[in-house]
C-alpha cells in the first residue's frame, strides 16, 4: 500500500511539473493568438477575401428557412463572379443549429473563434440571436442583418452596438395590421395564436399595444411551443372564443396547420397571417390554395410570383442568376428572394466600409441610406447612429386564391 501511494505521489509531482513547464512555454503563444481586436486589421479579412459566418436551421422543425441561406449564398457567388467587393471575394460559412439556441451559441463560438470569420451575417431566429448577442458584443464581432424581426435589435444600440436587424421588426408589422383593422373592421373581435418565444411575444405585444385606444378587442390568445407536434387544441379553443378575426403569429409549419384547421372547421374569421408564415410554396400550397383565399398578410420585398414584377429589372436579374448560382433553388420561393435581398444589403455595407476593420464595417452599417431594388418601391434601407431599424415600412397584401396581391400603399410604421 505504502509503495503504491508513494508511486502515485511521484506521478502527481511529475505531472504538475510538466503542467507548469508547458504552461510557461505556451503562454505567449496563447495570449498572442486568441486576442483579436487591437491591431490594424481584424480576423477574417484580407485583400482578396472577406469571411462571413451564419447559423441557420438546416434541420429540425424550422428547417424551411434553410432556403434563405441558399439565396444569400447565390447572391454572394454572383457578386464574386463580378470580382467581389473592392477586390475581396465574399466567403459565407454556414452551420446548422436546428433552431436551438444552445447550438446557435456553439456555432457562433465556432465561427468566430475557430473559423475566424470577420462578421456574423443573417443568423436566423429570435431566441438564437438573443442567445449569442451578449457574446458577440463582448467580443466586438459584428452580428449583422439578423434574420428575425424582433424589435430588440434596434431598441438599445448603446448596450449592443455590434448587433443590427434588417427586415421590418415585428412591432412595425403588428402596427400595420392594427392600422388595417382599424380601417377595414373597426369593431373586430380578435383571437390570436402565437409561438411561445421571443418572436411570438414581440409581435403579439406590439399588436396589443397598437390596439390601445381602438374599439378592436383581443378576446382570446393561445400559445404553442415550437417543439409541439400540433396546435389542434389551441385552434379549437380559439374557434370557440366567438372571435371574428384571427391573427396567426406562427412559423411556417404551424401556419399551415392553422389554415388547415380553419378549413376543416366551420369557424370562418378574417385571417391575418404574419409575414413569417406567408410563404406560398411552403405554407399555402401544401394546405391547398383554395383554403388560403382571402388571407391577409404584409410584404416589403417583391414577390417573385407576382405578375406585376415579371419584367422588373431587379427581379429578372435575381431569377436568372439564382438559377445560375443555385441550380436546384426555385426562384419563385420568396425565402430565396429574401436571402438574395439581405445579401445585397450586406454587399452595400461592405462597399461603404472605409478600412478593413470590424469598426469601419459597423460605421458603414450605422449610416446606411440606400434602396435595394428587390424591395417594394418606396421601402428604403435607412439607418443612423440613433436609428437601428433598417427597414420600417410594409404593405398589406391579400391572397386571391392564386397569388398574393398588394393592397393600398406602403405603410411607414416606425417601432419607436
Amino acid at each position, binding site marked *: 500500500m505504502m509503495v503504491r501511494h508513494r508511486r502515485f505521489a511521484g506521478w502527481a509531482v511529475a*505531472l504538475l511539473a510538466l503542467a507548469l513547464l508547458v504552461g510557461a512555454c505556451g503562454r505567449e503563444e496563447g495570449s498572442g493568438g486568441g486576442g483579436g481586436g487591437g491591431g490594424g486589421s481584424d480576423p477574417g479579412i484580407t485583400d482578396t477575401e472577406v469571411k462571413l459566418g451564419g447559423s441557420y436551421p438546416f434541420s429540425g422543425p424550422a428547417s424551411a428557412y434553410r432556403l434563405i441561406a441558399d439565396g444569400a449564398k447565390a447572391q454572394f457567388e454572383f457578386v464574386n463572379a463580378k470580382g467581389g467587393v473592392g477586390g475581396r471575394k465574399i466567403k459565407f460559412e454556414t452551420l446548422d443549429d436546428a433552431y436551438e439556441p444552445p447550438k446557435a*451559441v456553439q456555432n457562433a463560438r465556432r465561427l468566430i473563434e475557430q473559423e475566424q470569420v470577420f462578421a456574423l451575417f443573417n443568423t436566423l431566429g429570435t431566441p438564437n440571436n438573443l442567445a449569442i448577442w451578449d*457574446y458577440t458584443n463582448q467580443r466586438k464581432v459584428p452580428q449583422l442583418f439578423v434574420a428575425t424581426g424582433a424589435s430588440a435589435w434596434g431598441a438599445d444600440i448603446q448596450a449592443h452596438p455590434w448587433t443590427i436587424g434588417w427586415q421590418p421588426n415585428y412591432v412595425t408589422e403588428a402596427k400595420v395590421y392594427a392600422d388595417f383593422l382599424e380601417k377595414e373592421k373597426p369593431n373586430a373581435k380578435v383571437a390570436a395564436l402565437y409561438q411561445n418565444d421571443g418572436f411570438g411575444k414581440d409581435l403579439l405585444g406590439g399588436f396589443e399595444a397598437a390596439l390601445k385606444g381602438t374599439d378592436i378587442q383581443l378576446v382570446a390568445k393561445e400559445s404553442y411551443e415550437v417543439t409541439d407536434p400540433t396546435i389542434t387544441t389551441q385552434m379549437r379553443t380559439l374557434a370557440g372564443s366567438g372571435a371574428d378575426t384571427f391573427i396567426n403569429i406562427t412559423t411556417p409549419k404551424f401556419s399551415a396547420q392553422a389554415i388547415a384547421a380553419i378549413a376543416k372547421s366551420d369557424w370562418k374569421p378574417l385571417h391575418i397571417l404574419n409575414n413569417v408564415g406567408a410563404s406560398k410554396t411552403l405554407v399555402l400550397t401544401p394546405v391547398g390554395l383554395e383554403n388560403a383565399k382571402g388571407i391577409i398578410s404584409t410584404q416589403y420585398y417583391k414577390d417573385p410570383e407576382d405578375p406585376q414584377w415579371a419584367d422588373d429589372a431587379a427581379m429578372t436579374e435575381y431569377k436568372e442568376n439564382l438559377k445560375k448560382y443555385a441550380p436546384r433553388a426555385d426562384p419563385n420561393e420568396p425565402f430565396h428572394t429574401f436571402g438574395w435581398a439581405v445579401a445585397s444589403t450586406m454587399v452595400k455595407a461592405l462597399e461603404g466600409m472605409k478600412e478593413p476593420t470590424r469598426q469601419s464595417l459597423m460605421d458603414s452599417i450605422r449610416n446606411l441610406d440606400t434602396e435595394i431594388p428587390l424591395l417594394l418601391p418606396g421601402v428604403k434601407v435607412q439607418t443612423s447612429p440613433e436609428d437601428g431599424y433598417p427597414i420600417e415600412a410594409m404593405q398589406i397584401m391579400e391572397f386571391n386564391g392564386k397569388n398574393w396581391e398588394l393592397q393600398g400603399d406602403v405603410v411607414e410604421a416606425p417601432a419607436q
Partner: protein
Amino acid sequence: MSSSSRMKRFRLAGWAFVAVVAIVLPFFLGTYRVGQFTQALALAIAVLGLNLLVGYSGQISLGHGAFFALGAYVSAILIVDAGVPYLLTLPIALAVCAVAGFLLGLPALRLHGLYLALVTLGVAIAAPQIIKRAEGLTGGTQGLSVDRPAAPAWIGLADDQYLYFLTLVVTAVMFLLAAGLVRGRVGRALIAIRENEIAAKTMGVDLARYKTGAFAVSAAYAGLGGALFTLPIGFLAPESFPLALSFGFLAAIVVGGLATIGGALFGALFIEFVPVYAADVNTALAGVIYGGVLILFMYLLPGGVMGIRRQIAARRAASQEQDAPAEKQRTEQVKTAGQV
C-alpha cells in the same frame, strides 16, 4: 502473478499518458476546441455517475439528462439571480442533485428493469417542459445567459484554459473518488446487487441503502457535470437538455465500457465529438452517420474502449496457459470485470 503486476504497470503508464495529453492539450488548441474538451470532461463526470448506477449496481436510468439539467440550472440560477460565486455553486448543484437522485431512487426499491427505466424516462421527458414553464426562474424558452468565469490574474492562463483546468481537476478528483468507491466494500456490494439481489441480501447487503445510495451518488455526479458543462458556453436553454442527451449518456457508458471507471472519459469524448463531425460530413445525414458509427463501434468493440484491454489480457492469458483452458480464463475475466 508477474503478468498481473506487468498489467498494472501497463495500465498506470496508460493513464499517465492520458494525463499528459490532457494537460498539454489546451496549449495547442484554439479557444473553441478547448471549450469542446472542457465540455467533454464535464460530460465524462455525468457519464461516470451513470456508469456507477447502470454498470455497477445494475439499475437502469434513462433520466440522467434531467439531473444534468438540474445541476446546470441550479448553478446558473445561483450565479445569475443570487450572485453566488460560480465555484461555490458546484457543491450546491451536487448536493441538490444528490437529494433529487435519492428521491428518484425510492421507486427503484420496488421497480426493476424495464419498469424502473420507464419511471426514469418519464423524468427525462418532463424535464424540458418543466424548465419551459418555470419561466420566472429559468428564463423559459429564452434561456439563461451566464457570464463566463474569468481566469484569476495570478494564474497566468487564458479564460478558456483556466476553465478547462478547473474542470480537469474536478473530473480527476471525481474519477479517483469513484475508483476508490467501487474498489472497496461499496463496489462489491453494488456488484452483488447487480448479479443477484437475493444472494446479496442473504450476505447482509442492505439493499435499500445501497440502491438509493447509488441513485443519489450517480445523480450528484450528473448534476456536477451539468453545472460544469454550462460554464464554458455561458448559455443554457431547455434545448440544451433534450431526451437524446439521456440516451447519449447510456451510449457513452457502453462505448466506454460498462462497469469501468476510465471508460466514462472515452464515452464522453465520443458523444461530444462524433455528432459534431457527423454534421460536418453531411448536415442532412448527421443522425444516420452518428447512428452508423455507434453500430459499427459496438460491432467491433462490444466491450467498449476499456474492453480492448480486457480482450488483450484474455488473449494473452489464453496463449500463456493453454493447458488450463476455459475455466481459468473465465475466472480471470470475472476478476477484472469489476475493476478500473
